[in-house]
């Protein structure tokens, strides 16, 4: 299972407004290469991290990030300010590009030729976790429904505010609160079961 955590914000503490991004893209659309440099510095780290979390491979994540940015450059001339936020648009594009890559990874061989499936490889998050409890939590997070997982990761790993998460996931603040509450409830339940099964040491 290649799944990593799927999120895509920088720190959540945005030091620039999304209007600035739209303005910069418009400047790039008018031929200003300096605007492209600023946009790259602003947007690339979060795009790269998002791809890395989903794909679990840095080289592949770089390819996806480059592709996502290329699509942004191509949109510059047609971008309609106010209709969509660039960060939200880029988040979706990156997500879709990653999903496409994951689909292409799957071998297309006849079912009778497929050997016994190996044990699922640990996710990047599991690999980097420094304790058994953290690894168990990582597995529990990856088992959450996608929207709950996205909301939880944006909140706890990217330190985004609920309104910012709502903007990113295209839902209301109340919906974000509900997603987070359900995710936390599920994680608490899963981790309690885990502790009961393996003891508390």
């Amino acid at each position, binding site marked *: 299972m290649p799944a990593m955590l799927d999120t895509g914000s920088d720190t959540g503490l945005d030091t620039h407004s999304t209007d600035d991004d739209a303005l910069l893209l418009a400047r790039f659309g*008018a031929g200003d290469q300096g605007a492209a440099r600023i946009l*790259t510095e602003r947007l690339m780290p979060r795009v790269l991290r998002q791809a890395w979390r989903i794909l679990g491979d840095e080289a592949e*994540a770089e390819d996806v*990030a*480059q592709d996502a940015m290329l699509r942004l450059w191509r949109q*510059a001339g047609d971008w309609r300010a106010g209709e969509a936020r660039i960060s939200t648009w880029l988040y979706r594009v990156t997500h879709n590009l990653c999903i496409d890559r994951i689909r292409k990874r799957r071998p297309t061989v006849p079912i009778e030729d497929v050997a016994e499936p190996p044990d699922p490889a640990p996710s990047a998050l599991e690999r980097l976790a420094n304790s058994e*409890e*953290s690894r168990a939590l990582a597995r529990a997070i990856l088992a959450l429904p996608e929207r709950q997982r996205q909301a939880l990761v944006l909140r706890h790993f990217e330190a985004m505010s609920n309104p910012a998460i709502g903007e990113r996931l295209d839902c209301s603040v109340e919906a974000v609160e509900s997603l987070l509450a359900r995710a936390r409830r599920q994680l608490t339940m899963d981790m309690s079961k885990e502790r009961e099964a393996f003891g508390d040491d």
Partner: protein
Amino acid sequence: MTDKAPFDLDAALSALAIDEQAARPAVSESLQARVLGDAARVAPPSRTLARRAVRSGGFRLFGLFDVWTGAAVAAVTLCLAIGLGVGYRAGPEVMGRAGLGQAKIAVAAEEGGGLFLSEDVL
């Protein structure tokens, strides 16, 4: 039976987030160069108007015209100035025929010929 401490989800999430942050990839210089290279490749042309090329053998005068266009503009301006001067000296009769309040051009053949403009456009 041992007492187990309650599971602290926030503490566990914080610990995992710290591990995750330490492993995050950074944007390499080569990736940034590739992205900016793409931007340069697909960039729309600048909307700044391109300056017309200077004709062979000419040069740009005051940043506006090449020398031949400048010479033509100067000649036309000189002819107009001469015509206006002659018209002014021809007096009110000719100016009246040229029409007041409008920029009309009259040919005053009887007064000796020449182009005249009404006084209000002088």
